[in-house]
């Protein structure tokens, strides 16, 4: 098992290096640069732009810039944002809480609701509930998050006035109730796609399990149905979901990016979008490395957990 983990860890580190090199190259080779915002909007001549470019070290050859950045990054110096001069780690840190709050809430909603819909759908296959759940999931997966967010704001904020139209809190309030009030809409919007995915995966997984011989055996032994379902079926059906959970991070982050924009949620997704727009190289690279690390950790944990519950994996 230890050898398996070390192997997977080695692969993960190689992948991170590759992600950093490719990400750095793509970002820096893309047209424009961190100073083009000033050229577009304010007060700087070409001479000024050239001077600042030199001061930031952006006039050096790209491989040198990469090696410099990489060397500092592995030592824990992720650089400073070009926009506000803060260290990249503190910039990411200041946005992380908001995103984590949103993603965690959405995940809890999606897992609970999705699993319930999936299990019920599998048990009542082709029933009205199952049909509605299937159609609902298809719609949820097809609706752009952006559009759904705007509709939610229109209905619940503009028309009904039940929920705030955005923001994480009311400035100067910040009570738990206020935070929850603001969290409802973006979390539900973000959870929509996740719920549909969890529901579909859970349904398939459950269907596979409840047709297995050991379930029939359990029933034949006279075991109560609730026990058959919870102890034998549900437990085994949840196993493949470990992988789903591990690989959900990128999807969730992508959804968060949109939800954060629509609901003016001060999280990582919006920071990423803003930083790309401003070509804030250090912050974009920081978020890229952070996200890649999270995805790899998620995937690694899923693999390890899977190997723990299914020893055949380790051999394979």
């Amino acid at each position, binding site marked *: 098992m230890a050898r398996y983990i070390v192997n997977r860890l080695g692969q993960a580190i190689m992948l991170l290096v590759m992600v950093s090199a490719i990400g750095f190259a793509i970002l820096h080779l*893309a*047209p*424009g*640069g961190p*100073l*083009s*915002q*000033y*050229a*577009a*909007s*304010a*007060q*700087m*001549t*070409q*001479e*000024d*732009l050239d001077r*600042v470019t030199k*001061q*930031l070290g952006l006039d050096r050859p790209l491989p040198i810039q990469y090696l410099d950045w990489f060397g500092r990054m592995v030592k824990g110096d992720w650089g*400073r*944002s070009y*926009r*506000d*001069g*803060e260290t990249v780690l503190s*910039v990411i840190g*200041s*946005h992380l809480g*908001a995103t984590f709050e949103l993603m965690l809430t959405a995940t809890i909603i999606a897992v609970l609701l999705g699993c319930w819909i999936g299990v019920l759908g599998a048990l009542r296959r082709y029933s009205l509930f199952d049909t509605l759940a299937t159609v609902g999931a298809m719609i949820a997966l097809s609706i752009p998050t952006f559009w759904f967010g*705007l509709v939610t*704001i*229109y209905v619940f*904020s*503009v028309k009904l*006035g039940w929920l*705030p*139209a*955005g*923001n*994480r809190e009311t*400035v*100067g309030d910040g009570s738990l109730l206020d935070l929850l009030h603001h969290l409802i809409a973006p979390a539900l919007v973000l959870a929509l796609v996740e719920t549909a995915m969890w529901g579909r995966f859970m349904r398939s997984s459950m269907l596979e399990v409840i047709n297995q011989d050991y379930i029939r055996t359990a029933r034949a032994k006279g075991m109560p149905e609730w026990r058959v379902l919870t102890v034998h079926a549900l437990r085994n059906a949840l196993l493949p979901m470990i992988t789903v959970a591990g690989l959900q991070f990128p999807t969730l982050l992508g959804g968060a990016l949109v939800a954060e*924009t*629509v*609901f*003016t949620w*001060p*999280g990582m997704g*919006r*920071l990423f*979008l*803003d930083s*790309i*727009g*401003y*070509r804030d190289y250090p912050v974009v690279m920081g978020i890229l490395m952070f996200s890649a690390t999270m995805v790899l950790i998620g995937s690694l944990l899923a693999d390890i957990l899977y190997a723990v519950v299914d020893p055949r994996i380790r051999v394979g």
Partner: protein
Amino acid sequence: MADETGRFGVPALHFGVPSRRRFIQLGAGAAAGWTLSGTAPAQTERPTTPPDKPRGQVIAALSQEPTVFHPLMPGIEVDQGIWWQVFSPLWFIDPDGKFIPDLAREVPTIENGGLSADGLTWKIKLRSDVKWHDGTPFTADDVKFSLELINNPDFRVRNRVGHSLVKDIKVVASDEIHWRMESPYSPYMSILSLTFIVPKHILEKVSDPNSSPFHNAPVGTGPFRWAERVPGDHIQLNAYAGYHGKGPYLERVVFKYIPDLTVLYTQFRTGQVDYTGLQGILPNFVQEAKTLKGRRIFVSATSSVEHLALNLEFGPFADRTVREALYLAINKQAIIDALNYGLPTQTESFVPQQAWSFQQGLPQHKYDPAKANALLDAAGWARGAGGVREKGGVKLEFTNSTTSGNAVREQTQQLLIQDWRAIGAAMRVNNMPAAVIWGDFWQQSKFNSVLVSVNFMLGSDPDVTPRFGSGAIPAKGGRGYNTYQYRSLEVDRLLAEGAKQFDLAQRKATYGDLQKLIRNDLAILPLFQGFIAEGVKEGLQGFRPNINTSINCWNVREWYWA
């Protein structure tokens, strides 16, 4: 776009015999005609008086996030929203174009002895009752430090236009500073009105002038002091009780960052924000916004001019007849009415119509495709395959670029394609994200044509040397942003003359001639003068759009709730 103008490639010039009134005219009356657009009425419906002490808060929504708080470093318009509250300049320009003393006791003129007759010696008397937010007294040393910091080669300053001419700075007393200008430069008065003074006692101690705790928790002499910043969300500023000027009347102001303009409007509509700042309300929402209860909508002119920037070195555009034909074939009114809801006004100049330097009576654009066709026929641009004209092997086809995602501009491009197809000109769209288009593509004149909005002015000053001077073409190693690659000896002469003149009447004549020339040459194809629609909650008093600043929340110190 807003930009700071200055003098580039202009030889040293001798200042002639000045009149006693020259600098008064330049200073106090420089922009006498510079008034607000008629569509932005003063807020006078509730004739109440400000409270005795700061009361309440305002949540001001901005569509861009302010991130640069050191007011001398490279920043964008939205950053100015913070600088105006936290810092103070020596003097500022009010909405009427008048210079109003701020940290200075008076605006220097030849009459009051603040300026020498040759415009080379500046003597500034400062207020002695000003304190920084940390309680340290403000002195002439702070002004000297700020001007020297701007010229410090290690400092990542925004630009040094005008400042680089400042020599021999002498602190005469704690409340008086003198310096000498290397050569007379009249636009420096405007430049200083937008130059915020920073604290010597804090910044002289930092090891790296480009990075210090001050950069993210600035200390100034302005009406509001720094409270907190939640990155990606908001910035809170609290009233500074020791402020030397009028106000502030609000306890705090919160600048809320809302990147999406539709969401920004929705939050204004639902009452979550009190004021919609930079970029304001989208034109398509303006009519509806005017019907909202408890809200007031201000549509005001800005200094920006929406225009077609042609690369004059690009094949067909080098021919003035082509430029004239293209201009005649644009249905400007359709662009204004159909796409911009009739809010902007047509213009023929790069100078805003409210400015003292605006030249009346420029030839008015007329939508006349028949005349455009006739002009091209006469000039030998014959229709070839597919109806596209060509002459001497050069086809009348080109690309037009603008920021992708700007819906109104993208629709404008569609109208232009249609208009120009009618005269045998083929235009293709080649849009790019902002970070791409305004980089080398724009700076190094790699475009054929661009649809863009530019603020050619510096406050109230019309010196456009960096925009139209022959020595300001970046693609040819110039030091400005003449990306049009426009060259004219006569324009160069007028620009050089205007920058050394201190008499308003003379300057008006010089810049009037300049506008005639630029219009005649069709160096740019102007579409309309920019506008901004902003929403303010009813009861919020003191909002005064100021065409001379980049952002209309320049005077939050004067705002209060009725």
